[in-house]
């Protein structure tokens, strides 16, 4: 009589299945991106009727005008867009209380306006970077939250949107 071999039940090792499922989960967690809104933040002035007019010295205002043709005038003088950054930076260094006022024509191209605003933001970012290097010896993005607030307070962004001439 032949000796029958005892059957061993075949088994697939399933202990690592959980790891595979986890891997799947992690993959989807990492790969999912919600569209993050990026852009240039700004605070509008309150409605004209509700606040009294605050008088600001003429010398504390830098007037930026973007006309319908897309030309930029700073205090009445024609300026190219890449020049804005350095010019504004120097002006703020001379007068830290400077308010930059932007005025546009109704026919001005929106992307041109954004370009100008972008240059202004870059100028302020440069100033903040310089300030944080001077005071903390570190780059602005390496500072902790409190220090960043401190720098922001030291160099506030003063961009004003000029009152439009006529409202439709």
């Amino acid at each position, binding site marked *: 009589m032949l000796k029958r071999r005892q059957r061993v039940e075949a088994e697939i090792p399933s202990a690592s299945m959980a790891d595979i499922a986890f891997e799947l989960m992690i993959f989807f967690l990492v790969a999912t991106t919600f569209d993050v*809104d990026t852009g240039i*933040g700004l605070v509008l002035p309150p409605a004209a009727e509700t606040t009294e007019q605050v008088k600001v010295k003429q010398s504390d205002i830098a007037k930026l005008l973007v006309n319908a043709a897309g030309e930029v005038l700073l205090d009445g003088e024609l300026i190219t867009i890449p020049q804005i950054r350095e010019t504004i930076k120097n002006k703020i260094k001379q007068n830290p209380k400077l308010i930059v006022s932007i005025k546009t*024509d109704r026919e001005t191209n*929106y992307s041109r306006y954004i370009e100008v605003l972008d240059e202004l933001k870059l100028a302020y970012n440069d100033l903040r970077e310089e300030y944080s290097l001077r005071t903390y010896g570190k780059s602005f993005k390496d500072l902790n939250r409190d220090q960043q607030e401190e720098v922001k307070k030291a160099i506030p962004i003063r961009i004003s949107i000029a009152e439009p001439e006529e409202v439709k």
Partner: protein
Amino acid sequence: MKFQKKFGQMKPRVPTASLPDVIFQLILFFMVTTTIKVYDVKVRYILPEAKAIEKIENKRLVSYIWVGRDGRIQVDDNIVQLDDIVDIMYRKRQENPNVIVSLRIDRESRMGIVIDIQQRLRKADALRINYSTLQKL
């Protein structure tokens, strides 16, 4: 005298076959409970580009206004008229005083419509705005 152990000859094993099911249950739970607000954008627009951009940390605060290439304005899921913005935004601001209005405006737009919207927002006292832009490389 020698005692023979009766039990403990076999290695005890925790049955792990159902672990993946547990994990899958977890995935399913998260999938079901996550709600993502997706807007149905009815206007066609291409955002302008800028370098000095920042992220909005708190998405809950944001509400959007779209302006398409054809000049149509959309708020939430509806196409609205310019003057409706005051009411809508005023209501939003009452619900959430720190609302940030993100303006998604086509790059070829004229400033006229932007100025008009900004004037309406000022009337509604929704003053924190954000010009939505793409990253310029």
